[in-house]
């Protein structure tokens, strides 16, 4: 496979994952602005920060304002990280790697783009927003479904998966990076309505509310939420789960290519951290520091993958 193709697959699935995650975050922001309008502004600020769009937003629009933020995240041409721009980039990468994709995967991503381009041609009214967010999640799920159902399990599939999990872990980590303070054990306000809403937002932004409740029998506890999102290997959006998958896929590449690369050592080191640390150790080390370390190590891993598999010269 061409190095360029591997890179195109990696990025195609990163962009798709990112667009889907942005939709989840808008959903969470919308929820909080409907239920607790006093907290809305800081919530939108935190969402803008998580998606890396805060500076661009403030340059264009100043203080965060719900409808403007939503439009910015969905479709504003000033935002290169908007959902629409992300889907466009995913589709452009799909065109570059078209020969590596099955017809089903290509059609799913092309249709995703055509549908969203039409849907997001105009600003979205509040009452249409839930439906639009649902279409985004659905269209993105179609691509994933086509990938699982039709693609041969070879290096092409592995690079697609690595892109997906890399981006997903990055997203979960960025949400935690914004919200770590409400998960600290020192914040002993358990049961206060303020924190319940905040915790709920974290779960909502990662679409894990129901999974959390099922596995924890409804007991909402910040330490358990942190553990869930970082260490729980059963949750497909946890850091531990995503890095387990990245490690697996790099391992399949090693088998197929008969070559071990240094990016694998970086991934292994991250996986080992999730295995060896329990939540107490992480809190002792400092939750914020742990997340910052993770974001730094993950960026280094991304660069090393790009070099090892020759995405670019």
């Amino acid at each position: 496979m061409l190095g360029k193709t591997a890179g195109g697959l990696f990025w195609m699935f990163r962009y798709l994952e990112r667009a889907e995650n942005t939709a989840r975050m808008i959903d969470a922001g919308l929820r909080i602005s409907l239920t607790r309008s006093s907290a809305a502004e800081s919530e939108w600020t935190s969402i803008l920060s998580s998606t890396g769009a805060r500076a661009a937003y403030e340059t264009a629009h100043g203080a965060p304002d719900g409808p403007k933020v939503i439009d910015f995240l969905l479709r504003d041409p000033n935002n290169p990280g908007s959902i629409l721009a992300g889907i466009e980039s995913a589709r452009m990468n799909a065109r570059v790697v078209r020969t590596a994709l099955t017809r089903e995967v290509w059609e799913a991503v092309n249709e995703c783009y055509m549908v969203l381009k039409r849907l997001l041609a105009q600003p979205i009214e509040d009452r249409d927003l839930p439906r639009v967010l649902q279409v985004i999640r659905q269209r993105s799920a179609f691509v994933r479904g086509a990938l699982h159902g039709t693609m041969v399990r070879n290096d092409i599939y592995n690079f697609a998966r690595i892109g997906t999990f890399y981006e997903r872990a990055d997203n979960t980590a960025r949400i935690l990076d914004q919200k770590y303070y409400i998960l600290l054990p020192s914040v002993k306000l358990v049961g206060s309505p303020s924190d319940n809403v905040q915790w709920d937002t974290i779960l909502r932004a990662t679409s894990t509310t129901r999974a959390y409740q099922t596995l924890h029998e409804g007991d909402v506890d910040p330490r358990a939420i942190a553990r869930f999102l970082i260490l729980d290997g059963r949750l497909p959006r946890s850091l531990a789960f995503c890095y387990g998958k990245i490690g697996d896929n790099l391992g399949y590449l090693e088998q197929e290519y008969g070559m071990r690369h240094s990016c694998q050592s970086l991934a292994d080191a991250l996986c080992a951290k999730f295995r060896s640390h329990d939540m107490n150790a992480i809190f002792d080390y400092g939750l914020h520091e742990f997340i910052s370390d993770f974001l730094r190590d993950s960026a280094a891993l991304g660069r090393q993958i790009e070099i090892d598999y020759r995405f670019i010269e």
Partner: protein
Amino acid sequence: MAADQKYFDEMFGHGATARTPYADYCNWFHHEDTARLLAKSEEAEALFRLIGVTFNVYGDPDATERLIPFDLVPRIIAAREWAKVAKGIEQRVRALNAFLHDIYHRQEIVRAGRLPAEMIARNDAFLPEMIGVSPPGDIYTHIVGTDLVRTGDNEFFVLEDNARTPSGVSYMLENRETMLHMFPELFSKIKVQSVSQYPRSLRKSLSACAPDACNGRPTLAVLTPGIHNSAYYEHAFLADQMSAELVEGHDLRVVDGRVAMRTTKGYKPIDVLYRRVDDEYLDPLNFNPDSVLGVPGIMDVYRAGGITIANAPGTGIADDKAIYSYMPDIVEFYTGEKAILKNVPTHRCSEPDALKYVLDNLAELVVKEVHGSGGYGMLVGPAASKKEIEAFRAKLEASPGNYIAQPTLALSTVPILTDAGLAPRHVDLRPFVLVSPDRIDITPGGLTRVALTEGSLVVNSSQGGGTKDTWVLEE
């Protein structure tokens, strides 16, 4: 539908009853509901858009990806009509390859006085870098698109020989797929020769031209200028169908005397490169130094026998419109036979007598730029306004050597489906020919292009042309 008496209609001839090849189709058509067919038309368009069978229009920011309109009335050719056309194409393509070999070696045809030396020496399409170079298998034009027009029951003319990088074959294949998808019942009634083997034949044909440097199964790649190129869809389609890599210049470099592509496992040598990049951009070290589309040093590898480039660099000399006028001589010189397919009579404006005739008869003639393509820079006299003709006259007088002129042919029509039912439109045909050392393979039919505007003779997709599925019937 009543046929226009002025033009030969392939469905109805000059009358009102269907010609034999169309009999079964017309029978089917008359039992169909036009509204249902028009709905099918929209279905086809949605399908094309989903698959992404689009082309880019340069300089049009609002429509970066457009569909070529597809008309669902097929163009039908009888087996015996096709057999004769195919024989003529084969003869012509053989002559083209012999001509190219000769032009880059001893130039016997010039020595024999059958072609003026200045036609070669002062021709930009002639590549001095190819002098004395023999490509692997001695094949120059691996893929040819011989454009044909029809004017009567038995009258076919070659309009041009596309010997560089003819495009459109993906439309031929997708049009057939779409028809099979939409009208399966038609194909069970009417036996149509298959075209779907083309990608396999292309792979086989290119593989048969692998260079000596090749070890074992040849590695093929398609070189594209990138996703912004107007034919990118086709490049990706062909690479996919041939299981070849789709590469761009920046994926390639010369490693150990071979052209190699950057893979996830390191650099891998390419044996046969099907390039969809023009000569000029192929090698910044040998040609245009500003090109970022090509591979620095590829020409040196090529001359040393390290890679096959398809089509060979320098084949443009054979489809040059000024050389075109010599094709009957060229065919006769290299095959020893009269040309089976006719040339359109061509006036070379570089010759004073011809120029005078052309200037006196501009309103009747089609004038083309010698190096033009895509229907640009061309005058269709009978369709042009006085003002357009006068503007063109000035250009022609300024540089007559840049132009040739031909009579306006009474191009045949094939009906298209309109809201008001069938309506005749002018068509041409681009058959696709594969050349390898042991055989010439012609896909039955080809791409039919149709001028969708009533009365228009310009079929180019960049200027409002559409396409049709082309059926060659089984014997």
